[in-house]
Structure formats: structure tokens, C-alpha cells
């Protein structure tokens, strides 16, 4: 080793070290956002058609905008501290009208609505986005919210019968892994189909000048599905679906007019339209980049008050003000950070330190000490905290066991000693406060009776019961409640319980796969009607996730959907809830109160029953003022 190298070496090391330090320093600093809030956990996705959670909702509501939006009314809170929500209005749609029979909605889009790539937002964008959302391969969990639209359910469930007008997608997609852009679509009449709907024949009609000539001659062709177990001789195709244009009641009449036809009068349809699953996505963007790459910061095209600047996993989603938003004038915030902090304690600490302007969660034990602070805002919320039970996993397949589990939980103790914010113990699934609706109640806390039920089920004193696992998404609050319930079940029923926790995204996936025994869940009413709580649990419903189904229940929900008289309708829903509470695929625990802590410098924040706080309506006074 030459002497030169030996002398240079220490200097080299020092130089490299200094450079490393400089780099470390520069990397560790990020320009500060105007407004930072804790969004709870890493969001699963930014795609409106695929999201189901509240954290995703907050970000999607900032990045995208639907035909309509929900806002809190600009009014002072009432004596409970609540501000009611305005009827959905003021979105991409400038105005809308409803036909006399309540079935036809006509939305007129405003001309100033733009995508972030400069193109105007058109009715065609909405029609395409809703079609994408309904397409069975997208796997949207909220697709059932469009079932009120004529033909939508059949499309989403791929329900066809011989004689229907159908569309067939051939196996010639540009990218077999991606749904869009789709392969060649052939449209025609279904002439024959085997029992498994795998091999079928269609009389394919010709397309003339952009329109299908249904009356004209067709060519009989045979097809077999790619996923078929017993493939036939026909051409390979991906999907056989009812023809969208002829069956589904979504029509574009002019570039800026969307006409939607419903099955029945649905009073809360406008609320559904203002809910994020029905937000539009840009077709070119999705087809060019595919899912999920289209949601990445460089690729994404959105139409909301904010643009996606970057997304750092388990750190934050940074959004910046969109100057081309049609209503950009009212948007005050320039840079918004949605942080992904799971720990309630850390969230509170960062809030008190001034690093967060808004925290959506605080550690439960501290709540009594925080209650008197002016920045602590709490209000009743249309939300239920409940445990889902996988009714296909023994011993939960026995209804007596499920009822026993419910009656062995001391819910009053949980709300008084664990959650501590004045929540109400829940004996029904639909929260109180919905006018005219009477809830059906489940069993009260009665350990003696619970033990009897368990004995009737054949598990006297817990003998013979396998271990039960409670799954929850990582958070101290959920963990504490799970530990209390673990103790209750152990003490009262002699059941051994183990706990497992998962990150939000994985948790949602696990629920979807029903790969759990007991899972903690929460449900916010998407609109102010009991139906939003009850139509989840129809057999096979995508948000059911308990493997439970009851045909009488399904009938009742359908009947309620058609009932015009509101009093009778609520009575039918009550009967449905009665079935739900008798069969107990879920155990309601308590009704939420929204808990938010907001810094003094934030203006425009008001508690409301759905805990919606659109970011574009918030204003902040600069730091240090």
C-alpha cells in the first residue's frame, strides 16, 4: 500500500463523511405544509372505484370531485354542537333535476370543470367511470350503491339469459393483466348458453355508424370463457355481460348532460352521487397506465380542489392546491399533508407539539383530561362500532354461540371505562337519531343467560370450544377494547381468545377474503337513512364480509327499496333489522362520537353527524400568527 494512499485516505474518509452528513441533513428536511393532519393509517388506494375506508375517503374527496358534493351548512352549531349537512350540491354538476316520478335524474355539468391535464370533465367521463365501477372485474366493493340504477345490478353480477342483448369481450386485450383498455367488444343477442355459463353462442350484430343495428342480420359465433373449467371450442373471451348501452340506465345526451334512470324513487340518491365511489376517473389516464399505476403522482389525472404531489408510504400523502379547479377561489390551503400515524398517542403528541393541525384520534385514557379543552371537538356520529363474525367458521356457525358472545360483553363498561367520550352502548346496528326509524334490539348484557345459550349450543362451560381470534386494525383504542372483550369472554364463557392486529390495507383485504373469525369493524352511514346500514348485509353483499345470508332479509331490503310510503318503508327496514339482530352475524358494541382536535389557527371546521371535513373549505392563519 503506497504511502500516498495512506495519507490521502483519512482526508478521503473525512470528505466522504462530510458529504454523507450534508446529504443526510438535506434529505431529512421537507418544506413544511400549510396544514397537516393525521389520516389514521396508510391509505390503501386513491382509486375512487376501489376504496372503502374513511382515510381513503378524505384523500379522494380532496383529489377528485363528483357530480355533487356534501358540505356542512355554513351555520353555527346547535346546542349539541352539531352542524347539519347541506343537501348534496355544488359539484361538477352545476344543476340537476328530478322527474316527477322520482326516477329520472338529469345532471347538467358545468363548463368550467377541468381535469388536471386541461381537458374538460364531460358527462361521458362519468358514464365511463360508472361503467368501470360496475364492471365485475374491477371488483368495486361499493358497486351495489349503483344498483338503484336500472340494469346496473345485472351488469355487475353478469346476469344474462338467452334472448338478452349482450356484450362479449374477446381475449385480445392490449395488456391481459389490465381491464382497460378492453379487448374487442362484440355485441349481439345471446342465443344459447350452457349451465355453467362458460360456453355460449351469440348472434353478433353489426355496428353501423357508431350504432348497433339490433334489427339487422347477425352472425352466429360461439364463445368460451377464458376461466372456463370445461372449455369448449368457441372463441376465447373474458366476459359475457348484459349490453351496457341498451340495459343500464346511464345515458349521455349531450357533452354536458348525464341522464340516470332509477328502478324506483330513491330519496337519498343524490347523497350517493356525492359519495366518493361515484367520482369520475380519467379514461385516457387509466387506459394508458393501467391500475394501480395510474394513481402514481406522475401519472394521475384528477379533477378536485387538490393535486397529488407525492405519496410516501406510511409517512404522508402531500397534496397541493389545484389552480385549475373550477372553484379554486374558495380554496385557501396551498399544501396539505395527510399523515399516516397509527398510534393514537403519537398522534396526540404531535398535535400538542404543533406538528399536526388536526388529529382525528386521541388515546382513550386521556379523553377525560382533554374534554374541557376548547380545541377538543366531539359530536354524535352516525356510526356504529361492531364486531363482524365469520358465520362459516366454527363455532360461530351456531347462532346460539353468536348470541351468547353478544350477551357476554359488558358494553356499558366499555363506553364508560375504555372509550370515555360519552359514546352510547349499542343494542342495535342502526344508530339512533334517524327520524321515524325504530331500531330492533339485540340481547342485553346477561352473562348467566349467555352461559345458558352456550350450554344449549352444546358447549357447556366453554368445553369443546376452539380458540377464537379477534382481528383488529392496529390502534391502541381497538386493542384495548379487544382486550376487554377477551377478558369478558374468558370470564363469562370460559372461551380462550387470542388477538391479532393488521395494518389498515391488509386488514381490509383480510375482511374482504373473510379470512378471520371475529373482526372489529366500523360503519359510517353514507347517507342519513337506515338503509345504508342494512343493505350491506344482503346475501353476498360486497360489504357484508361475514358469509351470512338470509333470503327473507334480502326480500325485505328489496321491498323497502321499492316502497314509496316512507312510514311503511321504515317499518320494513325495522323488520329487516330484527332478523339481523336475531341471527347476529355482527355484534354491535357502541355508537361513535366523533372526536377531533383542531388547532386554534384553523377556521371553518365544524362537527357534523357524518364527520365530513372537506379540506377545500378549511382556512388557516399562518404559523406564528
Amino acid at each position, binding site marked *: 500500500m503506497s504511502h500516498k494512499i495512506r495519507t490521502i485516505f483519512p482526508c478521503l474518509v473525512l470528505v466522504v463523511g462530510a458529504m454523507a452528513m450534508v446529504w443526510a441533513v438535506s434529505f431529512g428536511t421537507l418544506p413544511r405544509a400549510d396544514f397537516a393532519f393525521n389520516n389514521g393509517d396508510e391509505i390503501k388506494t386513491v382509486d375512487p372505484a376501489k376504496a372503502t375506508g374513511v382515510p381513503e375517503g378524505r384523500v379522494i374527496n380532496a383529489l377528485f370531485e363528483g357530480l355533487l358534493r356534501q358540505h356542512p351548512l355554513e351555520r353555527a352549531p346547535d346546542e349539541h354542537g352539531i352542524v347539519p349537512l347541506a343537501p348534496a350540491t355544488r359539484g361538477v354538476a352545476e344543476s340537476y333535476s328530478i322527474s316527477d316520478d322520482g326516477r329520472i335524474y338529469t345532471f347538467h355539468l358545468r363548463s368550467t370543470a377541468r381535469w388536471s391535464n386541461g381537458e374538460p370533465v364531460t358527462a361521458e367521463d362519468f358514464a365511463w367511470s360508472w361503467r368501470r365501477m360496475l364492471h365485475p372485474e374491477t371488483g368495486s366493493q361499493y358497486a351495489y350503491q349503483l344498483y338503484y340504477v336500472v340494469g346496473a345490478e345485472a351488469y355487475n353480477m353478469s346476469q344474462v339469459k338467452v334472448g338478452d342483448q349482450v356484450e362479449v369481450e374477446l381475449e385480445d386485450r392490449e395488456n391481459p393483466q389490465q381491464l382497460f383498455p378492453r379487448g374487442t367488444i362484440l355485441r349481439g343477442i345471446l342465443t344459447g348458453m350452457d349451465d355453467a355459463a362458460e360456453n355460449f353462442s351469440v348472434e353478433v350484430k353489426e355496428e353501423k355508424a357508431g350504432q348497433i343495428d339490433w334489427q339487422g342480420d347477425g352472425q352466429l359465433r360461439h364463445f368460451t370463457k377464458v376461466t372456463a373449467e370445461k372449455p369448449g371450442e368457441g372463441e376465447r373471451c373474458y366476459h359475457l355481460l348484459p349490453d351496457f348501452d341498451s340495459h343500464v340506465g346511464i345515458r349521455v345526451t349531450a357533452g354536458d348532460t348525464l341522464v340516470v334512470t332509477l328502478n324506483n324513487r330513491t330519496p337519498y340518491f343524490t347523497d350517493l352521487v356525492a359519495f366518493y365511489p361515484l367520482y369520475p376517473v380519467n379514461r385516457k389516464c387509466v387506459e394508458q397506465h393501467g391500475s394501480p399505476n395510474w394513481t402514481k403522482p406522475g401519472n394521475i389525472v384528477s379533477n378536485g380542489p387538490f393535486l397529488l404531489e407525492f405519496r410516501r408510504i406510511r409517512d404522508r400523502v402531500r397534496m397541493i392546491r389545484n389552480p385549475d379547479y373550477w372553484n379554486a377561489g374558495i380554496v385557501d390551503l396551498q399544501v396539505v399533508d395527510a399523515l399516516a400515524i397509527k398510534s*393514537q*398517542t403519537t398522534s396526540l403528541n404531535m398535535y400538542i407539539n404543533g406538528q399536526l393541525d388536526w388529529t382525528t384520534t386521541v*388515546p382513550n385514557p386521556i379523553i377525560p*383530561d382533554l374534554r374541557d379543552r376548547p380545541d377538543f371537538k366531539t359530536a354524535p356520529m352516525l356510526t356504529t362500532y361492531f364486531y363482524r363474525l365469520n358465520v362459516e367458521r366454527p363455532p360461530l356457525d351456531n347462532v346460539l354461540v353468536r348470541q351468547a358472545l353478544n350477551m357476554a360483553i359488558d358494553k356499558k363498561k366499555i363506553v364508560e371505562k375504555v372509550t370515555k367520550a360519552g359514546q352510547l352502548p349499542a343494542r342495535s346496528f342502526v344508530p339512533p337519531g334517524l327520524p321515524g326509524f325504530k331500531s330492533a334490539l339485540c340481547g342485553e348484557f346477561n352473562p348467566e343467560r349467555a352461559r345458558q345459550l352456550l350450554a344449549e349450543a352444546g358447549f357447556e362451560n366453554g368445553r369443546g370450544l376452539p380458540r377464537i381470534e379477534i382481528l383488529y386494525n392496529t390502534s391502541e383504542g381497538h386493542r384495548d377494547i379487544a*382486550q376487554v372483550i377477551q377478558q369478558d369472554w374468558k370470564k363469562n364463557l370460559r372461551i380462550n381468545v387470542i388477538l391479532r392486529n393488521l395494518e389498515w390495507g391488509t386488514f381490509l383485504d383480510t375482511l374482504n377474503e373473510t379470512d378471520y373469525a371475529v373482526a372489529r369493524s366500523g360503519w359510517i352511514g353514507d347517507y342519513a337513512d337506515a338503509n345504508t346500514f342494512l343493505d350491506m348485509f344482503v346475501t353476498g353483499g360486497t360489504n357484508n364480509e361475514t358469509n351470512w345470508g338470509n333470503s327473507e332479509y334480502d326480500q325485505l331490503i328489496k321491498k323497502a327499496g321499492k316502497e314509496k310510503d316512507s312510514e311503511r318503508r321504515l317499518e320494513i327496514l325495522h323488520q329487516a333489522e330484527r332478523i339481523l339482530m336475531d341471527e347476529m352475524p355482527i355484534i354491535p358494541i357502541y355508537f361513535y362520537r366523533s372526536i377531533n382536535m383542531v388547532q386554534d389557527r384553523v377556521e371553518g371546521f365544524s362537527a357534523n353527524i357524518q364527520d365530513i371535513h372537506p379540506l377545500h373549505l378549511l382556512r388557516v392563519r399562518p404559523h406564528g400568527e
Partner: protein
Amino acid sequence: MADQIKPAGGDRSQLEYYADLLEEAQRIKGISLWKDAWRRLKKNRPAMVSMVFLILLSLLALLTPLLPLQSPSEQNLDDGQFLGPSLAAATLPLSKELADHDTAVEALIVQRNEVAPGPEQQQLDREIAALQQESPLSQYWNNPGPITRSLIRLRATLFGDWCFPSLCGTDNLGRDVLSRLFWGARVSLVVGIVATLVSLLIGVSYGATAGYLGGRVDAIMMRIVDVIYSVPFIFVVIFLITILSEESIRESLNDIGIDQVMIFYVVIGAIYWLTMARVVRGQVISLKNEQFVEAARVVGASPRRIIFRHLVPNVMGIVIIYLTLTIPAVMRFEAFLSFLGLGVSPPDVSWGLLVNEGLQDITPVKIYWWTVTFSGLSLALTLFALSFLGDGMRDALDPRMKNR
């Protein structure tokens, strides 16, 4: 000295000479390795203090079921949450509940014995088994084993309902921190010792075999060790735990009777055997050519017998030195895993788990300091003591220090 004894000849007979020699020899006591080491260790103050502390800790941990502590898992939500350390009296209604339970079980047993064998008796057997499960012992403690049960019963007879007050306060669900500390100590210490023993077993056998067999076999075995050594084991272990905690695997392992804690023993032990193997191999190589090995071989002992009966006992000194290094490392790793949530799961307790829970109770609004401080201190003190003792033993057993 022998030269001070007058040799035979003259007025001394051979017999007298030999008698004197014998007397002299008996007066000079030989000193064994262990005695020598012990003497040195005794002079090392910090090491002795640490040893006393550790022995005390182990005794207390062993006898925890006997100690009149409150229940580590019984929640007291009514008004017992986050109480600070206090001397307020506490009781556990154990005697009456146990008495009631025992009476009920006895009644059933009497009934059972009166009935002729048959379905009725089987039914009664089942009822007895179910009743046993309901015992207050299972309620206040998490499924204790038979020895633990007897100890708890003994405690009930000795102390009745009286418990230590919550000297360390209560946690967010009203559970007594002091008793959680003790029960956590059991887990931490047991994992520390058993995992170390596992590593010892694997390491010593592997290293001794490699060292003795030598040649190609040795080269290959050591190469394997080298490769494994270069892998960042902590990460691989976590990956292993990831796979092993998959539900279906966990269930099937449970059926065989291996629960998660046992997986730990093996997995953690599997990290630390490498150094032990290397060290033992080194020792064995240096001892391989000693005369006693030669003698054993001449007599016809099989390699296995030579390795395990002759070589291994002679490497014990150095093994013990490495033991003192390994136990704290294992305990620290177990606490590390429990802290991250990959270790023991509730309702079992471990010190790492307690520190994790305690950390979540510190907020600017209210600092519930006792939940994290006591568990952190226990962990720190124990590791401290182990480290001092380890240093002390290393110095004591150091052959260069002989007779100093």
C-alpha cells in the same frame, strides 16, 4: 518443601521419611480450576452483587405463583385504571372462591365414584373436567400448568386473600403492574435460559464434532457456519417468525403441542449457537492432541464417547464464559421482539411487551410514568447485572490470571 524433610538414612527410617512426605503433601491443598476462579470472583464486588441480585431474581421468578401478588391479567375497569404507585390495601378473593370450587369438584367426584361405570360416569367425568377448567386459578392467571397450580394453592393457604398493594401502580386497563412485572420476569428469564441452553446444545455438539473429526468434514462444517454467520440473522429470524405465525402453520404446530413460546426458544437459540460452535471447535482442536484423548482412543472409545465424555467436559470453562455473554443477548433479543409485537402475545406478559405498552401511555397531557419506568428499569437492571457478572466470570476464569 520436600527438601526440608530430612531424607532417609541415618536416624530416620524410610517409613518415617515417607510419612513426613505424605503429611506435607496433604497440607498443600491442590487448587482446581473452579475453586481458583471462585476465589477470584469473590473479590470482584460488582460481580458478587450482581450474582446475588440475579439469584434473588431467579428465585422470585420461580416462586412467583407462591408470592401474594395480584392477578396479572384481571382487569379492573371500575376505578382502577392508571392508579399511581400506592400502598393501598389490595385483596384477591382467592380463598373463598377456591374453597367453593374445590367443594363443588369434590361433590362431583363423590357422585362419580358412586355411579357404576358407563355413560353416566363418563358424563360426570366430563362435567368434572369442565368444572376444573372453570377454576379461579384459570381465571386470575392465564392457564397455569400443574406445578404452578399447586404453588398458587399453597399461596392461598399461606396468605389467604391478602396481596401486595399496587406498589407499581396499575395500567390502562386496571391491571396491577407489579404482578405483571413478576410474571413477565418468568417469561423473559425462561426464554433467556432455555434459548441459551438450546444454543449451547447445538453449538457445543456441532463445534466439538467438527473440531474432533477435523479434515474435510470440519472444513465443510465451518464453511457452513461462516455462510450463516454472514447473514444478518436478526432479519432472517424475523422473517422466520413471519412465516411461522401464519395461522394454519400455527394451528398445526399447536396441535403437536408446540406453542409460540417454544418456537421462540428454538428460533432464538438458533442464532446464538454459531459463536459457541466456533469457540468450542477451537478449544477441541487444541485439546484433541492431549494425552487423555490419546488414552481414550487406545482404550477403544468410540468418537462419540470421546467427544461427549472427554472433550466436552473440558471445554466447559470457555462454554460458561460464552454462556454469560449469550444469556443477556438472548434476553435482549426477546425483549426486542416483544417490543415490536413479534414476541409473546397477550394475555402472556413479557418485559418487552410491558415497555411497549408503557410507552404508549406517555402523553404531554398526562404522563403515566410508572407503566414504562418499572419495566424498563427491571430490564435494564437485569441486563446490567448479567453484564457485570459476565465480566466478572470472564476475568475469574481467565487462565492467565491463575493464582493471582
